[in-house]
């Protein structure tokens, strides 16, 4: 016990130092990469219409983010992402609870889920566009479909991980099944759910963009297609930056929510992407 505390006491400043070195190296690598890239374009090693310089991309991104039409495309894609994700969350948690807690539902549904899980969801997207049209609906369905499985799988393990002693405690208090679910099973499953949510947050962006590639008049994905058609490479890169920013913001938001909801869990920190 004493040695463990001592070891931890020693390693804390060590970790800090390693973190600092890591941050410094990471920053140095950033400068090296983007500086090299910038120089390569300036020196004419790469034609700017094939690979634009980082500074040109940044300037274009700022312009895009202050232009009403591009901003409305951002909002459009974000709507697809969030609505699709929310749908997947509700369905995934609901079905996950059912499968985890009801043996019959488990036996009936699990074979289908295993089978469906192996289908590459992106390959289904063209069919979904045919079914749900070129509007926002088909993209929402694609996002929901891609997000559904990571959430479902984690929900099932989450709801199955309940400590039987906690259930016994609730039974001793004559709790109803609903009380047991809300007060014990759901909080217990939260760290697992968060792990699924981190993954699907990233999948969401992919799903929305793929959906728009296949057929859409609006959104960041369709903007990429339009700009590619007019050989506007800087414009494509700019959208790429915006999509990356969206991904980062969503990830940070999910992590912050996760840290609040599953603050008590030790596994939470390690399970995200």
């Amino acid at each position, binding site marked *: 016990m004493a040695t463990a505390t001592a070891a931890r006491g020693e390693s804390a400043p060590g970790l800090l130092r390693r973190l600092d070195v890591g941050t410094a190296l990471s920053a140095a690598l950033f400068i090296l990469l983007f500086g090299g890239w910038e120089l390569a374009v300036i020196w004419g090693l790469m034609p700017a219409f094939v690979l634009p310089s980082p500074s040109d991309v940044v300037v274009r991104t700022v312009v895009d983010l202050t232009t009403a039409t591009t901003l409305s495309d951002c909002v459009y894609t974000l709507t697809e992402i969030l609505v699709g994700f929310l749908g997947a969350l509700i369905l995934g948690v609901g079905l996950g609870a059912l499968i985890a807690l009801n043996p019959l539902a488990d036996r009936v549904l699990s074979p289908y889920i295993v089978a469906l899980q192996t289908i590459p969801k992106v390959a289904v997207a063209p069919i979904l566009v045919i079914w749900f049209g070129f509007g926002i609906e088909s993209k929402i369905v694609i996002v929901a479909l891609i997000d559904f499985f990571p959430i479902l799988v984690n929900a099932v393990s989450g709801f199955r991980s309940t*400590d039987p*002693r*906690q259930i*016994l*405690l*609730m*039974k*001793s*208090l*004559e*709790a109803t099944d609903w*009380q047991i679910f809300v*007060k*014990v099973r759901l*909080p217990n499953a*939260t760290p697992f759910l968060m792990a699924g949510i981190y993954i699907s947050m990233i999948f969401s962006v992919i799903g929305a963009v793929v959906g728009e590639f296949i057929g859409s008049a609006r959104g960041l994905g369709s903007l990429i297609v339009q700009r590619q058609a007019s050989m506007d490479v800087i414009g494509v890169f700019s959208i790429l930056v915006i999509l990356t920013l969206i991904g980062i913001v969503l990830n940070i938001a999910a992590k912050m929510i996760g840290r609040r909801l599953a*603050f*008590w*869990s030790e596994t939470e920190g390690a399970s995200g992407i």
Partner: protein
Amino acid sequence: MVAATIARSIATPARAPFIALDGVAKTYEARFGGQVQAVETVSFEIGHGEFVSIVGPSGCGKTTLLKMIGGLLEPSAGKITYQGLAPGRKKPQLGIVFQDAVLLPWRTVLQNVCLPIEVMRKDRAEGEALARRLIELVGLKGFEDKYPTELSGGMQQRASIARALVSDPAILLMDEPFGALDALTREYMAQELQRIWSSAAKTVLFITHSITEAVFLSDRVVVMTARPSRVAEIIPIDLPRPRDLQMTTSEVFGRQVAHIRSLLSATGEL
């Protein structure tokens, strides 16, 4: 000899009967086939307001027995009956203290202690006031807003004792509740438990591996045999109340402790 001990084990308590076990047995189905006979056959009664302890070798089925008495586990044979229950109730309202604290890690100490109030939909304000008093009673004042991971094992267990008391249960089932406590806290908690018990007219079923604790607290001590378990003997403890620690050094006390110890070593343990 065996017949004699069984005959003796059906002895009824002096108080009005509350819970009666009649030929109760439990055989577990093992996960990969096969069976584990935990409790062979047990019959005894617990009186209203009585303090009964169970001592026995580890793995003899004490926890199993406690769960069956609380109606949380079906006996495989025999039956358990309750008397004098409030109308409409099939089993008494329970307060359980498990071997480990079983606190919900996402709730603070106060929220954990208030759990029974929420589940039973009792008055919140009243419940919280009682919860705060009980938290103070178990020596956790100042820790109301701490989370379980911030507490030592002993402190967690004390929080779980407060939780068991907050619903004012008809019977308190305690499964080696003081196992995680240090010796001093343990003595203190035993005295507190005696005080709570005598002031609140509660029935207590108390499992312990401390013979001294059992004798100190109980009206009667049920000594179990090794698995598959039966009742080896039921020993009435007729020391006057309230009992203080001074009494544990008395001759009568020592004799009863020695008697129980000899019973347990006869069953092949300790």
